């Protein structure tokens, strides 16, 4: 009886390993959270956030996964942090209650509710974005996703790029519309080592 039990456990072990959920904490050195927004119908102003944390989980067998992202809104950077002769810089204004309201809402978060696969590759993430205390569903298109296998000196590493569009007015961020666009293009570049 014990021998049969050992055989059964050993036989089941590879299956269990295959079905395991792989977790990839985001590597801050190779991850970016950026955005672009229309200005006066002329150009696109580009910005990014420098402080964030998150992770990606994938179950390749069950074709499921998840994305969690927490962004520090005070880390917004639109390459205009030097006010020069102006009273305040654009980044200072973006942190104020007119836009990201960082003192009241220091973080925005994204939590997935569904990951859609095409073959073995995730192509779409549906989830909830919480910004300024308002939660709305946001779909993120995974433009690229690739993994490099583990080697003798390195863990398995996955990465890619993704994008989404939101209307900031839906989150209560209405200041400056239409001179500063309502639609915001979000772009993500990400990498993470398998935990």
């Amino acid at each position, binding site marked *: 009886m014990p021998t049969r039990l050992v055989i059964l456990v050993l036989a089941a072990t590879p299956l269990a390993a295959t079905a395991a959920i792989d977790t990839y904490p985001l590597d801050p050195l190779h991850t970016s959270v950026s955005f672009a927004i229309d200005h006066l119908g002329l150009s696109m102003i580009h910005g990014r956030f420098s402080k964030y944390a998150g992770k990606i989980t994938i179950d390749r067998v069950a074709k499921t996964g998840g994305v969690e992202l927490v962004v520090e809104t005070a880390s917004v950077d639109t390459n205009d*942090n*030097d*006010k020069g002769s102006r*009273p*305040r*810089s654009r980044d*200072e*204004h973006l*942190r*104020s*209650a*007119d836009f990201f*309201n960082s*003192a*009241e809402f*220091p973080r925005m978060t994204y939590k997935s509710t569904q990951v859609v696969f095409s073959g073995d590759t995730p192509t779409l993430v549906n989830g909830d974005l919480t910004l*300024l*205390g*308002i939660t709305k569903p946001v779909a993120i298109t995974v433009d690229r996703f690739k993994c490099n296998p583990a080697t003798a000196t390195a863990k398995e590493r996955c990465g890619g790029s993704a994008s989404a569009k939101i209307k900031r007015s839906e989150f*209560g961020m*209405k*200041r*400056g519309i*239409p*001179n500063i666009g309502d639609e915001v293009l979000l772009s993500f570049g990400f990498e993470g080592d398998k935990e």
Partner: protein
Amino acid sequence: MSEIVGHPLFQGGLAPLVVALIVGFALARTRFAWLAIMPAYATMIALDTGFSLFPPTVARKTMAIGLLAPLVGIAADFYPRASRRIAVALVIVTALVSLWIFQTVLQNRDGANAIIAGAGVILFVAAMIAFMLRLRDDGVRAGAAGLGLGFAASIAGILSASIGALVAGAAIASACVAMLIVQVALSRMLAPGFTGTLPVGLLVALIAAGTQQLALLPWYALPLFLLVPLAAAMPVSHHRSSIVRATILAGYALAASAFPIGAAWYAARTAVQ
């Protein structure tokens, strides 16, 4: 047209001024002329961000309390008890309400910082309400104080990276200018009572405290705002015509408003990136 309607000077300046003039003249024969502050402020909100209560942020709670304050003022004006006791009660209640308004900001701070910031907001709001309520029997003084306070909140706001404060402060200033115009045009003083002084004092206090908590107004600008109602209480002969009194008192108030504006300007000039 939409460019004009979307401009902060129209939203916070011209539109509230016109609305307050219409309501002020319409109610001039009643005790409620100073209710004009409420539709003027509501017009600014409608044109600027629109009405929304959820999630209850500092700005949304300020809006709700600002619209409620004139109604509380009417009730206080009708209350049969001694006016002085009601004033003290309103100072205490509004100070406590301010703590609720800023709760969402204070809870993001660590212990000592939250206590200091909360105590500062309470003291500032209480002092502002106390100083404004002292002007409740003199419509010209209250109008001049509201003009100076709104102007200070507006300019200090834009120097502190807050267009919201610019527009809201301008709306209060415009409404108070309208009430000065109504009194001068009718050559009759319209006592604001609690109905007029409570919303003006409370809104400006919350706008200024909000600019300090949520934008970049330095803390030392807040006590300087209190100079404005003090300046509007300075002696001016009652024998002068209402236009002369209004001009002199508005001059005092605007001169005093230079102090908080100067503090905001100084902070912006010396800010380290």
